């Protein structure tokens, strides 16, 4: 069980009064207090960790969010914001004395403007929901995390989500124009807007990826983009991981930035092929999925250049998709990778770290060694263009020893990422999962700097406690000097 902040005894003692207080602010059905209905909120996408919250509040408007926040602030109650609950780092894990503020009822699209190329949506709109709303006009919202059918834009903002196509289109932070926020005190704020580059401190950049530590996001203004004329994928398979890594370097060095450049190792290829029947090469040690876009003529030109580069690395096979259906099948395997691994192992931990791409062969080699040392299987799939690894560590949740080893294995992989010059996270956030590793990447001075920024927004540390910062460190710091 994950260690969290000690619940505040006075808050636990006032549970019924707090629920009654919330019911005065929201419609009857939008406050959950009974044990049976609280149960679904006890965990998120990192289901190894569970904690039933004090209560759940489900506001429908920014004003209701503000009322709940002001009330909780006045009462000294901790608040855990939650979108769809797809976090893989435990970012929405409740505390025993916290109110979970669920934004899933805020699911309206407020404005779409094709001339100015933006959409204003509430925080509970799903990622795919934005693209679906504009696809008839051949527009799309670019970041496409694997969970895009379920995950919500508010959560995407809080975790700065990426996706398979962020090599070309960037992560969430690069696709936002403005936010409507509610502070911990319950004030409503607008930052940015329908224009580029607000003057002054970059609050938009700071809030994005802040994991619910600074404020509650209720509305998001996103950039929408016109879809390309078309896109096409190809596969290239190699008999060794270092050779595939060298091929990635050669593609980028040639001046081509594919819209996606994905890497899978042998265990992952097998798991995905069994699931998607995409025609993945089962004899390969490593495989690249490379996607380009543009008109058919442009696709042919780019894929021709990429084939020439791949050919210099003695591929086992290369296969260029000949149709939209073939491209979709290729992506079905990749996007279903996590589920596919779930079919061969009852439980897995999906890790998320980033490394300089030049260190890839060495890092994957070391992960394979660790897999033998821990006696746990691992499948690797990652965004090769930007060095964002997603090792999937397979374990058996019914065996506490197996889970303990998987956690240790995961932690060691992330430390390795930092050792080679990378980061603890790519796109899943720190959450509870990696908070105790923060001291491995940051020294105390740096962590204190981040903690003081947190305190500037949330002086009493009521927002999403026990996440991001190592637990022993999470008492509000005094300002350095007054």
């Amino acid at each position, binding site marked *: 069980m994950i260690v969290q902040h000690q619940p505040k005894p006075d808050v636990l003692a006032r549970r019924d009064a707090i629920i009654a207080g919330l019911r005065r602010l929201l419609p009857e059905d939008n406050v959950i207090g009974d044990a049976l209905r609280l149960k679904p909120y006890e965990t998120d996408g990192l289901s190894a960790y569970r904690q039933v919250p004090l209560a759940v509040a489900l506001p429908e408007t920014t004003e209701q969010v503000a009322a709940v926040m002001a009330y909780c602030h006045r009462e000294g109650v901790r608040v855990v914001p939650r979108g769809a609950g797809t976090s893989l780092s435990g970012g929405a894990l409740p505390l025993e004395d916290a109110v979970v503020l669920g934004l899933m009822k805020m699911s309206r699209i407020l404005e779409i403007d094709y001339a*100015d190329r933006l959409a204003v949506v509430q925080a509970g709109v799903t990622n795919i929901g934005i693209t679906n709303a504009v696809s008839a006009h051949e527009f799309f919202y670019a970041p496409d995390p694997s969970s895009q059918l379920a995950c919500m834009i508010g959560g995407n903002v809080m975790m700065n989500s990426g996706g398979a196509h962020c090599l070309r289109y960037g992560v969430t932070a690069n696709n936002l124009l403005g936010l409507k926020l509610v502070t911990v005190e319950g004030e409503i704020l607008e930052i940015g807007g329908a224009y580029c580059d607000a003057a002054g401190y970059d609050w938009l950049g*700071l809030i994005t990826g802040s994991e619910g530590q600074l404020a509650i996001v209720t509305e998001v203004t996103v950039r929408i983009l016109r879809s390309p004329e078309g896109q096409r994928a190809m596969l290239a398979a190699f008999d060794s991981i270092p050779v595939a890594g060298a091929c990635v370097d050669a593609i980028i060095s040639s001046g081509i930035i594919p819209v996606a450049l994905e890497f899978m190792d042998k265990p992952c290829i097998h798991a995905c092929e069994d699931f998607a029947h995409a025609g993945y090469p089962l004899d390969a040690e490593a495989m690249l999925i490379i996607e380009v876009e543009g008109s058919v003529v442009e696709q042919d030109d780019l894929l021709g250049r990429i084939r020439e580069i791949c050919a210099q690395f003695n591929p086992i096979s290369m296969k260029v998709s000949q149709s939209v259906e073939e491209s979709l099948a290729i992506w079905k395997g990749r996007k279903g990778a996590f589920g596919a691994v779930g079919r061969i192992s009852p439980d897995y931990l999906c890790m998320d770290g980033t490394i300089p791409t030049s260190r890839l062969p060495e890092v994957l080699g070391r992960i394979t060694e660790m897999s033998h040392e821990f006696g746990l299987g691992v499948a690797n799939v990652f965004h090769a263009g930007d060095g964002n690894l997603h090792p999937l560590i397979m374990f058996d949740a019914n065996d506490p020893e197996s889970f303990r080893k998987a956690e240790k294995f995961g932690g060691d992989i992330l430390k390795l990422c930092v050792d080679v010059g990378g980061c603890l996270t790519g796109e899943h956030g720190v959450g509870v999962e990696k908070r105790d590793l923060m001291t491995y990447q940051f020294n105390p001075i740096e962590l204190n700097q981040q903690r003081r920024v947190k305190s*500037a927004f949330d002086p009493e540390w009521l927002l999403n406690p026990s996440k991001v910062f190592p637990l022993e460190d999470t008492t509000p710091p005094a300002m350095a000097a007054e």
Partner: protein
Amino acid sequence: MFAPNSEAELAQAIGEAYAAAEPVWVYGQGSKAQTMRPVQAARSLSTRNLSGIELYSPKELIFSAKSGTPVSEIEAMLAANDQHMIAETPDFSALLGSTTPQTLGGVVAAGLSGPRRISLGATRDHVMGVRAVNGLGETIRSGGRVLKNVTGLDICKLLTGSHGTLAVMSEITLKVLPAPERRATVAIAGLDPVRAVAALAAALGSPYAVSAAAYLPAQAAARVPAVAWLQGSVTLARIEDFTPSVAYRADRLRSDLAAFGAAEILDDAASRALWAAVRDAQPLAAAADDAVWRVSVRPSAGPRVVAALEAEFGAASFMDWGGGLVWIAGPATDAAHDAVMAAALREGGTWQLLRGPDALRSAVAVIPPEPGAMTRISARVKQAFDPKSILNPGRMRAGL
């Protein structure tokens, strides 16, 4: 003036200023000293001696350099590898009457982005990591040297565009991209601003990956040789990529925009010259003693800002970012500044007084005040980095 030779010397100097509670004017080479609010400080510190490339990995699309490194040196290094800085860093030296080179720290601290901002993001989108010294004299790192870099709170974004008021950057890691093989610009002559912005919206909403979109009224176009021959206003959309793609897309875009008028296609050399001019605001017909503003609004609102300020004080102007960035020149008076602020606020946008006499820049809000509760949070964030308010006090806003 003190110019530390190492990050350790920088930290020591700031630590001493902290102990003495004495404000420090922090700058690189001073090329932007004539913008934002003037700083009154007992001490001054230049990062010019913190110079040099620390790391360049073309295949990983990143470089790291010390903050005092001249931008020209970085651009030359990237060009030798057919790469470039993504946000098309502008150089306002001519506009600001500066003869000193821009430094990397200066362009990041000022958070300035050029024409490519609308397609591939702002400077802040490409800052992957920083090393910096805060107002306590403590050295801090944020981000890293990888393309997905955010672990914990994103201090990199906060420092970008903070004009040295939170911490002094000592080293910066930026993402770069391959430079395009070829550029072309589709140019339509003779449109009025409203029609021009509609054409630019159609171009930016096309599937042809337009990378920059600007409108120069006749007076502005006449100042740029690459388009002056078109005689009149010009509406401009740039495409940049591999040669076959550029030829194909420019041609398609020209036919898609036919309803707006016959278009010329400017070649690679003309496009380079044209967009360098747009980037550096050369088309702006500003008299020597005029003030200069940048107003950012939603693109469709750009023509209304232009019309309002023409009526108000006969503003000279041009538009970049598809209409979203309006460059304005006019008299350096409180009245003109009030009119610019009002026009920006009416459209829900933002402004920056980029150039003006010290007296004007000291007296007015060179950028908008923080909205509502952000005033309090902003002051606390400043205190979280610089508790004694010694770093460039008052540079962005009076009293902060």
